[in-house]
């Protein structure tokens, strides 16, 4: 019960946000497209939060996060097709299984590669991400409906405001509780100084694996939501650039800040998708010219991000009572 009572403020904010959104959705004021973007921003927040656990809190740099996001998406879509999932209630287990699949793969991959540090880990995770992309591109040779480079079509659109929003809220709370527990503390110790953490009794290999698995789980849930929001999957939705998207959200919001990830996720989706609406098509190609410049500037001025290791009092995302 204290799962909820220790987060009164956050839940209150969430419910108000939900009511406002629900009102807007019902008013017919927002086009279908904008509604979809709003729901997508929750997915981006959730998936980036996973990366923040891995990189921002635990210091394990990953360039392959979109691979896990993709595994979640394809697993959920495939299971849904096999079991003919069409209703919300049969969707919830699928959502969890999408996350679990990504978590299990994360665990299996993590056992060997989390021994690596910094840039070597970056290359290994990058390699993993590219491998996932290659496999998805060729997936139809093994399983026809995965669609390979043609894409996975015909996924029912089940994800609505309630599912996307409350899944996010629930998992943010779970994440907060982990972060402000001994586990979160150990993760941050490992990030600061792995050797000292070992010397003070922390099983660093296990804790890194736990953070990595959990972060991948969040990405998998994000992917599963994505599949049932857009009802179409293509390998290019899960490539290196998507990993960079999530990385940017983590970095801009701040390493080791849940609040930062939430704000940056909203901001990022607004900017990226907003530019798509606001700018003429020819100008769109400038997006990826400006984004790297922005990224480099953030690295020069605030290498740990804007809200590094700080949480909003307003949202009540601190340790709580």
């Amino acid at each position, binding site marked *: 019960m*204290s799962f909820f009572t220790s987060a009164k403020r956050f839940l209150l904010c969430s419910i108000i946000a939900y009511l406002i959104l629900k009102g807007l959705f019902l008013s017919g004021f927002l086009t279908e497209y904008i509604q979809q973007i709003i729901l997508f921003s929750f997915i981006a927040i959730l998936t980036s939060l996973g990366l923040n656990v891995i990189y921002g809190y635990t210091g394990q740099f990953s360039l392959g996060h979109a691979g896990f996001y993709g595994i979640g998406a394809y697993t959920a879509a495939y299971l849904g097709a096999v079991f003919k999932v069409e209703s919300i209630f049969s969707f919830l287990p699928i959502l969890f299984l999408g996350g679990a699949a990504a978590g299990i793969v994360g665990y299996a991959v993590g056992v060997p590669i989390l021994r690596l540090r910094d840039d070597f880990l970056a290359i290994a995770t990058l390699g993993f991400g590219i491998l996932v992309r290659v496999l998805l591109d060729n997936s139809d040779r093994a399983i026809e409906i995965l669609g390979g480079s043609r894409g996975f079509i015909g996924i029912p659109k089940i994800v609505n405001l309630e599912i996307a929003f409350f899944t996010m809220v629930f998992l943010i709370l779970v994440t907060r509780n982990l972060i402000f*527990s*001994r586990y979160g503390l150990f993760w941050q*110790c490992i*990030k*600061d100084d792995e*050797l*000292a953490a070992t*010397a003070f*009794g922390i099983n660093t290999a296990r804790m890194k694996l736990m953070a990595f698995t959990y972060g991948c789980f969040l990405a998998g849930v994000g992917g599963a939501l994505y599949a049932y929001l857009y009802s179409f999957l293509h390998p290019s939705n899960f490539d290196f650039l998507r990993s960079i998207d999530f990385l940017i959200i983590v970095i801009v919001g701040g390493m080791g800040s849940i609040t930062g990830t939430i704000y940056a996720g909203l901001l990022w989706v607004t900017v990226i998708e907003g530019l798509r609406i606001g700018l003429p098509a020819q100008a769109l190609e400038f997006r990826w010219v400006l984004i790297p410049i922005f990224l480099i500037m953030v690295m020069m001025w605030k290498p740990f991000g804007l809200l590094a290791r700080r949480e909003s009092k307003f949202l009540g995302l601190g340790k709580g009572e």
Partner: protein
Amino acid sequence: MKALEVSGLKKSFGGVQAVDGLAFSVEEYETLGIIGPNGAGKTTLFNLITGLYRPDAGEVLFFGRRLDHVPAHRLAHLGITRTFQNLRLFNGLTVSQNLTAPILGMHGYGLSSAVFRRRRYFKQERSAEEKAHVLLEFFQLADKGSLGANNLSYGEQRKLELARALSTNPRLLLIDEPGAGMNPREIRDLLATLRQVKEHFRLTIVLIEHQMGLVMNLSDRVLVMDFGEKIAEGTPAEVRKDRKVIEAYLGDELKTC
């Protein structure tokens, strides 16, 4: 009872024989000082005892138990902790969290207690915080508990290193050059603190230090290392007089203290 027993310990890096067949032992509740010139292998010895390096040969017994196959992170649980020569605090954490992290590593709670905020979570968190507070008071850092660890002054960071090493109730404490980079006033302060630690916590201590005053004052026995070997061992008074020691290393430094 022997708290620590080291025999035939060897470790080399490339061509450098950092520790070369070292043997010594430490009685329970004893304080052993280790001195020796730069590069004598003192820190390497600590790294071998605490499992950060694997020895090429030899063994380490802790209360009669072999440590070879104990993973490094288990040692704190067995009762061995250390401080680092170059400070290695958890700089992203607060002063108080630098202590609660190791404490919660010893007496924890499970994942479900954490996620669902069960009663055990609150109980253990509170008791860890209380314990950290007591330690911080002992080291006169209590009012700085919520600062970032890297906001402390150098001397305070040294104290926090010590506090952290004590936070897990060790039976054997390894202290690596606590006086490094300190001025004479800070050294005097440190000496007083270490005295208090000795009195207050009943511990076995191995202390590496270059500051002669400190070692000679605190140690029951002193071991002198050079080129990874033991060149002398005895009470502070004996070591002061040892010819080999004076030649190899101490020289005029001894006369000044």
